[in-house]
């Protein structure tokens, strides 16, 4: 008994270590790619920062200050070391540390992503489960239709439609900004719809698969209450694979948030990132990419660990 427990603990620890290793590898790969792309672009970053009409000595001084005069491999090692310490340098324009800029904006984006994530689960799980239990009925058709339409409608169009209907026409919600609770509702609905559409299909597929298993047939045959078999036994098993998928979906929410923040003029990470791109503020772009890669990998990692926690079969295997 105790031996089993110990092997199971070992398995969990090795799972965590493996996932963290992959995380480190991914982040390193992403930062290498970012480092290289910024340096292969036509044009001199120092020139971009200094402005097209700056005098050559000023550009040269800037080049030295930004470390662009050093050999590429030394720049790369320096970049890796800085990244490891989460030091992304300072913004070309506002001169503020990039990490401060990011941490300043991240809470809004994180809050938007987390609330949309919860809403999407609250919507997708019941719809997916009902569609699976009532397979090939009108309910199933409606659920699948919701999924197809939700996936086809681009989030920014949905956002505009919601704004036109609820803010312009009915005047129920404020138009732009993030000052009150009411400002949050339409952005959250937009993001949640997009994710829920994808999740519904996973929940339905997973539940259908579970309902076809023998234990459900056996429980039905033994005359256990029909609904209890479905909603307590099968549902719990069916939701396990959904946890992993949901973790990945959470990562995509961060990407979706960029667009939705733009439509609703929310001052989050997305807006910071986008304005950095428009003004070619490379430290902010690099820092933003690495930061998002870390958050994205962490959420995938967390999902894996949660599914290992709820599903002993993964732990042992």
């Amino acid at each position, binding site marked *: 008994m105790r031996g089993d427990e110990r092997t199971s603990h070992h398995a969990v620890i090795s799972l965590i270590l493996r996932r963290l290793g992959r995380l480190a*590898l*991914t982040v390193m*790969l*992403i930062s290498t*790619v*970012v480092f290289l*792309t*910024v340096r292969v*672009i036509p044009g001199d970053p120092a020139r971009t920062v200094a402005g097209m009409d700056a005098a050559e000595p000023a550009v040269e001084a800037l080049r030295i200050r930004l470390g662009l005069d050093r050999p590429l491999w030394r720049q790369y090692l320096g970049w890796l070391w800085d990244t490891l310490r989460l030091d992304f340098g300072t913004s070309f324009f506002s001169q503020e540390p990039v990490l401060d800029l990011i941490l300043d904006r991240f809470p809004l984006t994180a809050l938007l992503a987390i609330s949309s994530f919860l809403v999407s689960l609250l919507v997708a799980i019941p719809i997916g489960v009902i569609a699976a239990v009532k397979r*090939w009925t009108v309910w199933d*058709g409606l659920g699948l239709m919701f999924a*197809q*339409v939700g*996936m*086809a*409608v*681009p*989030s*920014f*169009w949905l956002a*505009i*439609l919601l*704004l*036109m209907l609820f*803010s*312009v026409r009915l005047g129920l919600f404020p*138009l732009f900004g993030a000052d009150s609770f009411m400002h949050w509702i339409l952005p959250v609905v937009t993001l949640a719809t997009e994710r829920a559409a994808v999740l519904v299909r996973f929940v339905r597929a997973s539940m259908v698969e579970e309902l076809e298993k023998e234990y459900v047939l056996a429980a039905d045959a033994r005359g256990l209450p029909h609904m209890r078999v479905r909603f307590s036994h099968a549902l719990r098993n069916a939701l396990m694979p959904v946890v992993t998928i949901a973790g990945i979906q959470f*990562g*995509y929410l*961060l*990407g*979706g948030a*960029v*667009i939705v923040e*733009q*439509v609703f003029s929310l001052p989050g990470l997305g807006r910071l*990132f*986008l304005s950095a*791109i*428009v003004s*070619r503020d490379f430290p902010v*772009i690099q820092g933003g*990419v690495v930061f*998002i*890669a870390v958050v*994205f*990998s962490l959420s*995938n990692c967390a999902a894996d660990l949660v599914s290992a926690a709820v599903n002993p079969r993964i732990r042992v295997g």
Partner: protein
Amino acid sequence: MRRRTEIFVRILLGVSVVYLMGLLVVAIAAPHIAPTDPRLQNIPARFSPPGTAGFLLGSDEFGRDVFSRILFGARSALLVGGVSVILALGIGLVVGLTAGLAGKAVDSALMLLMDAVLSFPTVLLAITVVSVFGYGLPQVMTAIGVIFSPLFARIIRTETLALKQEPFVLSARALGTPLRRIITVHLLPNMLPKIVVQCTVTVALALVVEASLSFLGVGAQPPTPSWGLMLRNARNYLFDAPWLALYPGLAIGSTVFCCNLLGDLLGELLQRDQ
């Protein structure tokens, strides 16, 4: 599947095939169908509501005909969808076949790279790439093609690994058939159905990414008629000209809907065949 559902599914399949064929015709014949030049400005007639004489779907802030712009927008959309999927398929084929045939070390290295690409939000990655190489549809197509290549690489690798254990491939190799012939005659035709399904779904994904980038201002540049770009401008006139936001979105939504549906149903049919 119950019979009624079956009939319904068939109707849906027919509708989406007809829609997509129609869209292709529209894209090719846009100069002949469109009532006016999509770039023709007519300032006095700006913000004409839909149904005004000469403006079936209204006019925009420069008095350009929305209907003509949507027809020409189909060109940008299908061009981006087509080119980026061909690019993604090309890269995916090279990487997937190499990973499947070259042995464990190469396989692990390539798949690690592919996973790294997939482990980043698509739209953000596309924005980053475009920010470095410049705005515009060619850059967007390239970025989308590269970003979606892992989707193909994974499928092709899995299929290659499975197929190369099959007796007909083993015996062809034993007979000394050249690798190129094994790939073109034995491997590719057998994985074609899955590739076709993936292509259909990827076109839909590519359309959404292109529209998103154009909406954010880093994709198609004015005055190119692009559905995403039209929505970008429409956001500024929600009060005065709501129709500007309605029709381009409808065009994107229905095209993506039909592509997704087609992909799903083809996949379902293939699965049933096996």
